[in-house]
């Protein structure tokens, strides 16, 4: 049985609300949690594969040119070294999310400093690493590399699809009562997932099993097959546990292909794990951005124009660019609009998706500019935003689906006691600390992707959920279990959810916040089909069927589900497809952030004292895991605001701070107790479970609340992120 639904129209049945098991929405613990904290969840590097060898990638130490010689003969056969792989199929760059085909291959050409150019394989990891450290490589460097995205002679291009010139923004700026016209800059970021990338490849004849840490197996299998020149049917990928991805594992990266090639060539399984510096250098970076924002409004604070023109960067030939203006298109009104993106082509590590590509940095800056406009217009920042929520999409003239932005603003202001804040910048001091408050809006586009999942109700009254969907630490195991349990009237411990196996029915994986709503809908549809089959057996309407605690019936006449099944399991595949509702309605998630900071008047050190996020993201499937996602996003926001910055040496483009000692993600002491409030919401245009994505919403503007608070504390506008102390020092009063 296959239950198929295409979202061509709203699904306002809200069927999950008719169910009585009480699992969906509840703050259920993750079933995989105890496995993870006790070391029983097998991550990519932890599989016990017999006869396994270890490979370590070798990095290019030039920025552009060709590898002319790899002197491997003196290494092989000594100190455990088994092979040095320089195959033409080695990946030069990681695959972009959803590529579905191999990224650029052939490691003889060097596009950036740190690019993988060879793999040294040895009996032990230590031997392989030493071999990689001492491998002698000769190069022919090309002198025309570009490293600085803003240099006058750096080539740029403008993606056609991302240029908007509506009305006359210049005129709107001239006519406006109040304007903001500022340039902001955000630095590059690395995903810095806790688990570094790793792959273990084993061949059985022509059949490859690849155990790795990946987010989107459905696409990864095709990328891998294409890279290896084999058919996808000959590959099985296993990623049951992924220790964080944040976009860096959307596509395959160099370790996957090199492990597979080496294992085939040597005839033994090969494990290739990236070191932390290699994660920084050879997986995706978020591009730095330069954002020119112009805002024009009347006396009433209502926007008449918005300009958001951005410069980002990537390697030549990459189609991905940081979609900085993604939410600017629909967030606020204003008739006159000029939005554009320009891509500088430079020889730095590949640019790609890092948590909430676009909004993470675009909303951050737009919400800074809104704060500046609020001050210019003398209007409360919350009120300014309320006044600029458009009725219809300001460019496409389509309606919005469920949107709880104003509620998030109002509720946040009440909880945070926004009205009690000090409104005069730089005038609230406790000892050496200047205290300030700031807020920002949140928005992230919503995406539904095609997904399939199989659900089987077994004769013993338990159920199995199967899909190639991944759990990247987000709670997929929990929420799919909850949806199936809710629909089938089973407690969570009667449901086994199997994920991360490419042999299972395929979904879109985890990324872009689409995983829960997409695969969750597929599970929902499969369960709905099973319910119909049960109802049929009972001779009743599915609408009247009550399934709870392993019993089936209507009203009070329930009988054990095992009796109804009578030895015959029921299985169904659910299949969801996005449809017209994505085109006809502007779908997004919204929220608000409020932050209190203390800035040291002597040293410029900033500490976030409290932070609140209020979010609306459709139906919340699990209050605990959804809240945790928001915590995580807001912590990223603190990092973006205060410390995180990829530093490149513009003489050769290498990443200077390529480890967690000097790439400063927030530590415990940087993060106060964060409060997250999830608004009750159903979005019937988004999915048959009325849920939207929530994985990235927490970061989409969060940093702006912090820097707006820094302004309130000090009177200093940070327009060049992150707000490290050196940028504040000169204008601070001192002790």
């Amino acid at each position, binding site marked *: 049985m296959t239950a198929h639904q295409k979202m061509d129209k709203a699904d306002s049945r809200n069927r999950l609300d008719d169910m009585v098991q009480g699992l969906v929405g509840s703050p259920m613990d993750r079933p995989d949690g105890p496995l993870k904290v006790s070391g029983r969840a097998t991550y990519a590097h932890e599989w016990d594969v017999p006869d396994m060898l270890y490979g370590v990638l070798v990095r290019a130490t030039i920025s552009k040119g060709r590898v002319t010689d790899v002197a491997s003969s003196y290494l092989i056969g000594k100190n455990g070294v088994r092979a040095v792989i320089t195959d033409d199929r080695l990946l030069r760059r990681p695959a972009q999310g959803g590529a579905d085909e191999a990224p650029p291959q052939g490691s003889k050409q060097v596009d950036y400093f740190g690019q993988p150019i060879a793999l040294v394989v040895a009996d032990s990891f230590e031997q392989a690493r030493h071999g990689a450290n001492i491998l002698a490589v000769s190069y022919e460097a090309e002198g025309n590399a570009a490293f600085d995205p803003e240099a006058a002679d750096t080539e740029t291009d403008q993606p056609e699809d991302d240029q908007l010139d509506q009305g006359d923004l210049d005129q709107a700026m001239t006519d406006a009562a109040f304007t903001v016209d500022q340039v902001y800059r955000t630095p590059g970021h690395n995903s810095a997932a806790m688990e570094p990338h790793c792959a273990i490849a084993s061949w059985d004849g022509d059949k490859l099993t690849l155990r790795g840490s990946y987010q989107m197996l459905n696409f990864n299998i095709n990328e891998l097959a294409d890279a290896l020149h084999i058919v996808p049917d000959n590959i099985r990928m296993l990623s049951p546990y992924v220790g964080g991805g944040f976009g860096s594992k959307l596509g395959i990266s160099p370790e996957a292909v090199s492990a597979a090639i080496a294992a085939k060539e040597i005839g033994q399984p090969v494990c290739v794990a990236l070191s932390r510096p290699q994660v920084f250098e050879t997986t995706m970076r978020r591009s730095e951005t330069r954002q020119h924002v112009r805002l024009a409004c009347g006396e009433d604070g209502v926007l008449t124009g918005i300009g958001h023109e951005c410069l980002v960067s990537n390697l030549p030939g990459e189609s991905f660019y940081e979609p900085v203006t993604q939410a600017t298109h629909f967030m606020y009104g204003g008739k006159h609009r000029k939005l554009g993106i320009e891509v500088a082509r430079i020889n730095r590590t590949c640019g790609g998706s890092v948590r909430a590509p676009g909004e993470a940095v675009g909303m951050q800056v737009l919400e800074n500019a809104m704060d500046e406009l609020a001050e210019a217009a003398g209007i409360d920042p919350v009120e300014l935003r309320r006044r600029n929520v458009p009725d219809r999409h300001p460019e496409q003239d389509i309606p919005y689906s469920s949107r709880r932005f104003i509620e998030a603003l109002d509720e946040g202001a009440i909880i945070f006691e926004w009205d009690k804040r000090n409104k005069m910048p730089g005038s609230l001091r406790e000892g050496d600390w200047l205290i300030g408050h700031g807020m920002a809006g949140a928005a992230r586009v919503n995406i539904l992707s095609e997904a399939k999942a199989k659900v089987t109700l077994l004769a013993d009254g338990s159920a199995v959920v199967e899909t190639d969907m991944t759990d990247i630490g987000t709670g997929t195991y929990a929420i799919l279990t909850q949806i199936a349990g809710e629909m089938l009237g089973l407690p969570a411990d009667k449901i086994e959810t199997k994920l991360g196996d490419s042999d299972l029915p395929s979904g879109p994986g985890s990324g872009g916040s689409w995983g829960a709503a997409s695969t969750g809908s597929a599970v929902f549809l499969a369960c709905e089909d099973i319910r119909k089959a049960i109802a049929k057996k009972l001779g009743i309407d599915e609408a009247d069927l009550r399934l709870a605690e392993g019993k089936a019936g209507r009203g009070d006449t329930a009988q054990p589900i095992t009796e109804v099944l009578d030895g015959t399991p029921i299985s169904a595949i659910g299949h969801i497809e996005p449809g017209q509702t994505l085109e006809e309605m502007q779908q997004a998630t919204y929220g608000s952030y409020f932050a209190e900071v203390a800035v040291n008047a002597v040293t410029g050190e900033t500490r976030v004292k409290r932070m609140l996020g209020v979010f609306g993201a459709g139906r919340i499937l699990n209050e605990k895991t959804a809240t945790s996602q928001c915590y995580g996003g807001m912590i990223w926001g603190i990092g973006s605001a205060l410390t995180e910055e990829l530093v490149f040496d513009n003489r050769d483009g290498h990443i200077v701070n390529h480890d967690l000692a000097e790439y400063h993600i927030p530590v415990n002491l*940087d993060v106060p107790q964060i409060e997250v409030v999830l608004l009750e919401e159903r979005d019937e245009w988004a999915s048959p479970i009325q849920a939207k994505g929530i994985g990235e919403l927490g970061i989409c503007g969060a940093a702006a609340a912090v820097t707006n608070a820094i302004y309130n504390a000090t009177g200093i506008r940070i327009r060049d992120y992150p707000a490290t102390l050196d940028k504040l020092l000169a204008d601070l009063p001192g002790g």
Partner: protein
Amino acid sequence: MKPFTYARATDRADAIAQGGNATYIAGGTNLLDLMKLEVMAPDKLVDINRLDLAEISGTDDGALRIGALVTNSDCAADTRVRQDYPVLSRAILAGASGQLRNKATTGGNLCQRTRCYYFYDMAIPCNKREPGSGCQAMQGFNRIHAILGASDACIATYPGDMAVAMTALDAQIQIEGADGETRLVPIQEFHLLPGDHPEKDNILAAGELITGVILPPPVEGKQIYRKVRDRASYAFALCSLAAVVEMDGETIASAALAFGGLAHKPWRDPDVEALLVGEKPSADLFGKAADQLLADAQGYGSNDFKIPLTKRVLISVLKEATDKGAAA
């Protein structure tokens, strides 16, 4: 990691006998990282963890001896250290993480190497790693680099906290040599400025072993450790200051000021201290002290901010140290 041999020393004589052409390992919190990268590639490691050097003990003349193998955690938590040398306890706790402090030792921490990004990247030339190859930090990204005492060859800093506090406390380092003799070296003479030989961090000769650190008898006065860094914890100092300041009525009786994050060694400037002693605290005086300290300071671009930062930190700490109302 380059293949190496490993031996476990049974006692000090054994360690020193084996140490001539080897590298000692205790906690290994810095050494192992450097060996994985092959920034350091010793042929032989001599493990000194079994040596009898993990005691903190009082001496007859009222000093406190901290054995070289006392962990940072134990040292910071020791009642005598907390009571008589609180600046040391605070400095240690301002560094690294609980896990690292549990492993890191007193002797090892003195030998901690710089965190210069270019020193850690084997693909980049570095005079400290490979003498004569050049310094890329000078024209590159140098946020954490020196503003005092640097040379044309190297602008790296000593990154630690513990030694900064020990410098303010006039600690002496016990070093045992191949001849079995122990010499006492004032901590200010232990670390070296880079000069023409940035590869040499300190005065230890081949085979010499740090056996302990002597803290002189407790002194009066306020003890303050102020550390400024890019995040609230788990980051190296951009500027740190260990201060031991004693007042005599209205005037400053003594001031020991040691700075971290500014130079290739914990930095102490006798002229600055002399300028303060015997004077009444004032904003003017503190400003003069800061100007004296920073008279020869030089920034290299991304670390220029350390000059005004250090001035602010010094003035602020002196204010706190000489403020009768504030608790030490």
